């Protein structure tokens, strides 16, 4: 009797501590819910828990669901089961494994954003107490209109939250537009045969499938040189939000050289991409060579990526230290192949800006849409340029 009670106590104790571990894991960035907790209890029951390694592997298989969580898990496990939980709790609010030694960056506001992933799912600031929402429509309006380079530090978190929400809404609207535009497509064989049974096998009544949505591809080229530094973070989030609506999104960064960040953007490995860029170049402070970067793009990727169903977007302020003829030539090459060429320039947000720089003036004739991209409002206005009806 006593033994059974002891065993019961011990197993209750074990259940308790596993549940505690799951809560700890959730507090430190893993997406662990009730279901996962129950699963981990089941898993613990099947492996020999005295074998610490087996226990760890079992919990890891159940509680993780992505490479990022996988990388976090080991540390969380070690800390919990060696008793030093308080250490990890303190560390969790200043960042997680995604923190990158961004030695090259000087602006601390950039660091803030680079350590925060592209969605709010695991951003440490938006945990239980981080989401102190800024209320009031007037505040939203102000935030939408504030130039990215002049956002006060205290507003960064709110702007982040607002932009994610509004971009998501834009996302939903765009996808609805694509679905609505369906007209009669090819014959649906299955339904036609169904209908022909009553007619003795002759397909007198035809059924049609809906028309397939048109594949639209997006190619974005983002200037990340010194002058564009503070805008590039937000622009990247914008591109990330658009990924769902286009059959394919290919993204590139350039400053003095071109870097392909398509894969990094897809898997949310933003800091890694920027680290890669800063490592392959002599730093951000060199002048921008827009024309040459575009030439590299055309040479290496132009054939593969540019076609009649592609929309090309260039984010840059047009300060080119190279020759304007080169820029003009490369732009005309791009323009010839794509459906639409959009140039987004944050400087257009300034009053009285006239594109007088040689680079920008040379580029203008080839651009279909020349628009501002200096604040949240201007980015949201681009929605109408992305509407698929213009791709007929």
């Amino acid at each position, binding site marked *: 009797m006593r033994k059974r009670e002891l065993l019961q106590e011990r197993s209750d104790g074990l259940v308790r501590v596993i549940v505690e571990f799951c809560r700890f894991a959730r507090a430190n960035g893993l*997406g662990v*819910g009730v*279901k*996962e907790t129950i*699963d981990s209890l*089941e*898993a613990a029951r*099947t*492996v*020999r828990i005295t074998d610490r*390694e*087996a226990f760890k*592997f*079992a919990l*890891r*298989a*159940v509680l*993780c*669901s*992505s*490479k990022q*969580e*996988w990388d976090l898990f080991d540390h969380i496990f070690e800390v919990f089961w060696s008793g030093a939980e308080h250490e990890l709790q303190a560390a969790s609010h200043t960042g997680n494994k995604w923190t990158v030694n961004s030695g090259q960056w000087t602006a601390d506001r950039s660091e803030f954003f680079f350590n925060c992933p592209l969605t709010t799912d695991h951003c440490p600031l938006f945990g239980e107490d981080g989401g102190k929402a800024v209320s009031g429509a007037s505040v939203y309006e102000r935030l939408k209109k504030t130039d990215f380079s002049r956002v006060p530090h205290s507003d960064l978190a709110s702007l982040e939250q607002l932009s994610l929400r509004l971009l998501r809404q834009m996302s939903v609207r765009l996808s609805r537009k694509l679905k609505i535009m369906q007209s009669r497509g090819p014959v649906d*064989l*299955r339904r036609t*045969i169904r209908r*022909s*049974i*009553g007619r*003795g*096998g002759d397909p007198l009544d035809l059924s049609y499938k809906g028309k397939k949505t048109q594949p639209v591809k997006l190619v974005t080229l983002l200037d990340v040189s010194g002058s564009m530094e503070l805008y590039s973070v937000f622009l990247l989030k914008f591109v990330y939000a658009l990924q769902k609506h286009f059959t394919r999104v290919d993204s590139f960064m350039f400053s003095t050289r071109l870097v392909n960040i398509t*894969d990094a953007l*897809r*898997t*949310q490995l933003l800091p890694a991409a920027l680290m*890669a860029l800063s490592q392959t170049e002599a730093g951000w402070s060199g002048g921008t060579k827009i024309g040459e970067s575009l030439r590299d793009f055309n040479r*290496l990727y132009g054939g593969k990526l540019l076609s009649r169903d592609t929309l090309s977007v260039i984010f840059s302020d047009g300060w080119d230290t190279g020759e304007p003829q080169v820029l003009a030539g490369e732009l005309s090459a791009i323009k010839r192949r794509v459906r639409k060429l959009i140039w987004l320039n944050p400087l257009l947000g300034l009053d009285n800006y006239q594109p007088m720089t040689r680079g920008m003036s040379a580029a203008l004739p080839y651009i279909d849409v020349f628009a501002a991209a200096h604040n949240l409002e201007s980015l949201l206005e681009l929605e109408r340029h992305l509407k698929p009806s213009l791709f007929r």
Partner: protein
Amino acid sequence: MESRVTAKAEEIQDVSAVIRGFERLGYVMDRALATAVYLLIELGKPLLIEGHAGVGKTEVAKVLASLLDTELIRLQCYEGLDVNSAVYEWNYQKQLLAIKIREGTDGTVEEKEKYIFGPDFLLQRPLLQSIRAEEASPVLLVDEIDRADEAFEAFLLELLSEFQISLPEMGTIKAKHIPYVVLTSNRSRELSDALKRRCLYHWIDYPSLEKELKIVRTKLPRLEEELSTQVVRFVQAVRQRRLAKPPGVAETLDCALALRSLGKDRLEAEAIEATLGCILKSAEDIAKIKAEGIDKILSQVV
């Protein structure tokens, strides 16, 4: 009646048995992956394996099927994969002929319809096959799920929760033996949260030097030891470079085989140059490595 264990599965008592079973079949296993596979068998939860190309994700499912002495059903995913290609389709030509043949014969429209949409005319695709296995739980491999789209993922999720499919013409079909499901992904896109949460997760990284050596020696036992060591070292060094398409284990094995068929028993610069296409699969990568100098890399490893 649902049943989940085959004769062999009952014999697998613990993780070590999984390791032994896999190694006997030529797959070099580590404890972490063995634990995940063990949980797949015991808990019946699907296993999602992510990793770069060529590290052995698909192999896990194949070896598991051999180990459990059961059928392997493979669904290769691609963009645009839909219910017709994944679950079932009707054999339209046969149906049209049957309709014509039966024209004028007795029978109501309902009877004819029932015949036309009956099992004789049903083309079963992998997902339906997997739940209609008669004798034992098969292994269902959903390969490269990241290439399919979200709509398909939602459909798959439903299947993985209930293990039953509703066909409008034939009613609901429940699995007699619940399949062991292995999903693989190259991480080219983020999978939906719901699907990820439904599955156990495992990440297969590029192997360490010792592990890769063990793999090459297991798969190519008759290869000279010096050659295999040098090839593995060389590929490991190449992987350190920032490449668009780093070579996986499959490429290491290809390279070793290629060199042997060229009659080499050790690694030389010109041999590598000739077989570079086994290791590197993109023009930019090849240019990059050549620019650095094959001799230079070779001198570091040999």
